[in-house]
């Protein structure tokens, strides 16, 4: 496992202060340690992703940085200011989208934007924000009548109402249909184009791969890897992945003995990393192999053949699988 620190030092630009600087963050809830010694920096203008399954500690980490929770240990500097000491100063300059979009009842879209605008010293004109997020048609609709995608756009619009330097998006596309998700991705890319720094959490690897400049892979309250998606894949899921349904009589040790196999993860399905997929496939599909013949009655089709076979390039999903031995979505 590679520590995050050395890579960070390499990516940090000389003389420029990071937008977020987190050191040794710890948060406990009774017996459970939700965040267990997390350290990282987020540079100006980047989209920084936090990838991990539910309960990995992404939201808790985010909410500590946003000044919503107090850590048990560690330091957080946001835009050069100590969040724990001056939460008000920081909140004036950041934009926050919480995981659950919560708005007051019986409020219309325009009114919600006006309301949040009034909470900041400096805010963008409501009409400009409505236009930017394509909410003109729904400006006079009650917020509880919006679709999931519209609600999410409003939620991001509210996070940007104070023209913040730094925006936090907590699972911005969870629960959305593919079309709405694509739409939100375009919105986030638009935010980056305006020079904002974005920190987002997600448990969708496609989202992290498409949007993020750098990704912190988080598991059980720790950062297990941090780099660009491309580097993470090259490091932890190189080459090709061969996947298939688990076959009785075929265990991980047998697979590790096959030619060309680099890594084997059994998690419902079998997932093999290799640089020579041809030789792995050849061995797997051999009709004389021990597992292929073990269940058959001699003649006829073998019972225990490889099914649901899939051969593909490595993804962040494989990175997570290889780092933790578990799948992102369980």
């Amino acid at each position: 496992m590679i520590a995050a620190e050395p890579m960070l030092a390499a990516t940090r630009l000389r003389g420029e202060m990071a937008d977020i600087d987190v050191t040794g963050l710890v948060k406990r809830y009774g017996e459970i340690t939700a965040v267990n010694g997390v350290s990282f920096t987020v540079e100006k203008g980047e989209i920084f992703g936090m990838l991990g399954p539910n309960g990995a500690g992404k939201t808790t980490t985010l909410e500590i940085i946003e000044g919503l929770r107090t850590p048990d240990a560690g330091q957080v500097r946001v835009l050069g200011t100590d969040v724990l000491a001056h939460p008000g100063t920081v909140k004036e300059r950041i934009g926050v989208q919480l995981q659950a979009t919560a708005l007051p009842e019986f409020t219309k879209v325009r009114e919600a934007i006006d309301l949040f605008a009034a909470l900041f010293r400096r805010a963008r004109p409501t009409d400009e924000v409505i236009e930017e997020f394509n909410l003109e048609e729904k400006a006079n609709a009650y917020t509880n009548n919006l679709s999931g995608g519209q609600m999410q756009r409003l939620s991001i619009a509210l996070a940007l109402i104070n023209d913040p330097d730094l925006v936090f998006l907590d699972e911005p596309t969870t629960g959305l249909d593919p079309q709405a998700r694509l739409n939100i991705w375009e919105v986030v890319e638009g935010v980056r184009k305006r020079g904002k720094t974005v920190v987002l959490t997600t448990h969708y690897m496609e989202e992290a791969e498409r949007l993020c400049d750098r990704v912190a892979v988080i598991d059980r309250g720790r950062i297990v890897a941090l780099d660009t998606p491309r580097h993470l894949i090259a490091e932890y899921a190189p080459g090709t992945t061969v996947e298939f349904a688990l076959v009785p009589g075929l265990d991980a040790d047998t697979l590790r003995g096959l030619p060309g196999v680099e890594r084997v993860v059994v998690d419902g399905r079998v997932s093999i990393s290799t640089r020579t997929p041809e030789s792995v496939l050849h061995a797997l599909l051999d009709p004389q192999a021990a597992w292929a013949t073990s269940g058959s009655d001699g003649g006829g089709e073998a019972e225990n053949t490889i099914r649901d076979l899939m051969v593909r390039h490595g993804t962040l999903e494989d990175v997570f699988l290889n780092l933790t031995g578990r799948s992102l979505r369980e």
Partner: protein
Amino acid sequence: MKAFRALALNQVRASVRNRTALIFTLGLAVLFMVIFGLLFGGNGISVSFDAVNNDHSAQSDAYLKTLGAIDGVTLHTKTHAAAFADLKDDSVTAVLVVPEGFGAAVARQGPPQQVQIYQSSAASSGAAISDDVVAQVTAAFAGGGSPSVSLAPPQAAQVNQVTAMDYMLPSMIAYIILFSGVNYIAFGLVEMRVGQILRRFRATPVRAGTILSAQVVGGGLIVLLQILVLVLMGVWVFGARNYGSWLLVIPPILLGTAAFVGIGFLITSIAKTTDAARAMAAMVTFPLMFLSGLFFPMTGLPEVVQVIARILPLAWASDALHQVMNNGAGFSAITTDCLVMAAWAVGAIALATWRFRWD
């Protein structure tokens, strides 16, 4: 200030749009007025007294005659035993005992005396009205407490003939103070907390105090708005009258609202869920409604219950409103009521602010 105004406006606007809650509170208050108006007749009270005259002076005769002359009042002078027998079988609302020395006291030639009312155990709002009528006639005979005033023989026309509607209007004002104060604040804040709206606000620079005070002021405005609608309906539709000053109605309304807003606020610091808040609010509001003299006088209640009811602020709000609107009392008569409500408001809000939780 900008944030406070926006938050309070949002609270008022959302409450007005929440028709169900609005109609539930205001509608129930109007319904109570209609029911009690039908029960007791819109045009006057109908109560019957037995009087025991232990004085037999010209003054005591005049006193009883004045009472008997009031529309809707039936009064028979009887012996002590006969009067209490009537009361026991519920054939009269109350028994009035005029003490010996009443005439001398009225003529200011003897020590002050008290007329005693005995009500049947089946207390009703008719009994409360009879209380008020007798109190007013007696007050008229006592000469208003100023020694220099000569005792004029009272005329029936000058006596406030408190109708059921007249009695119900201040009761229903107190009812709205109770329900809206508790419900708008308690449910509003708990829903904001459970729905994570408070967390969302907390992610902005707005201060906790700003959110809370906007909620309280916004909720208070809604209560006042409902009272205004109720009073206008009471006066114009139901013909209820206010025998006192409208100006004097304001302090008990404001202080009562503040006290119950405070209690609602206190519930939010204890209740974890909306359902819990609802149950707690019901536990506070329903017993209070029946124990605080809104529908029948507290004098009919067991002593222990009375003591408990008098600790809680609704009895004081109800008393102050009835004193002013039915008896035409001045500020001195409601000073204690106002002080108790103010103490409740300050205490509850301070405690709730201290115990407040964001999530």
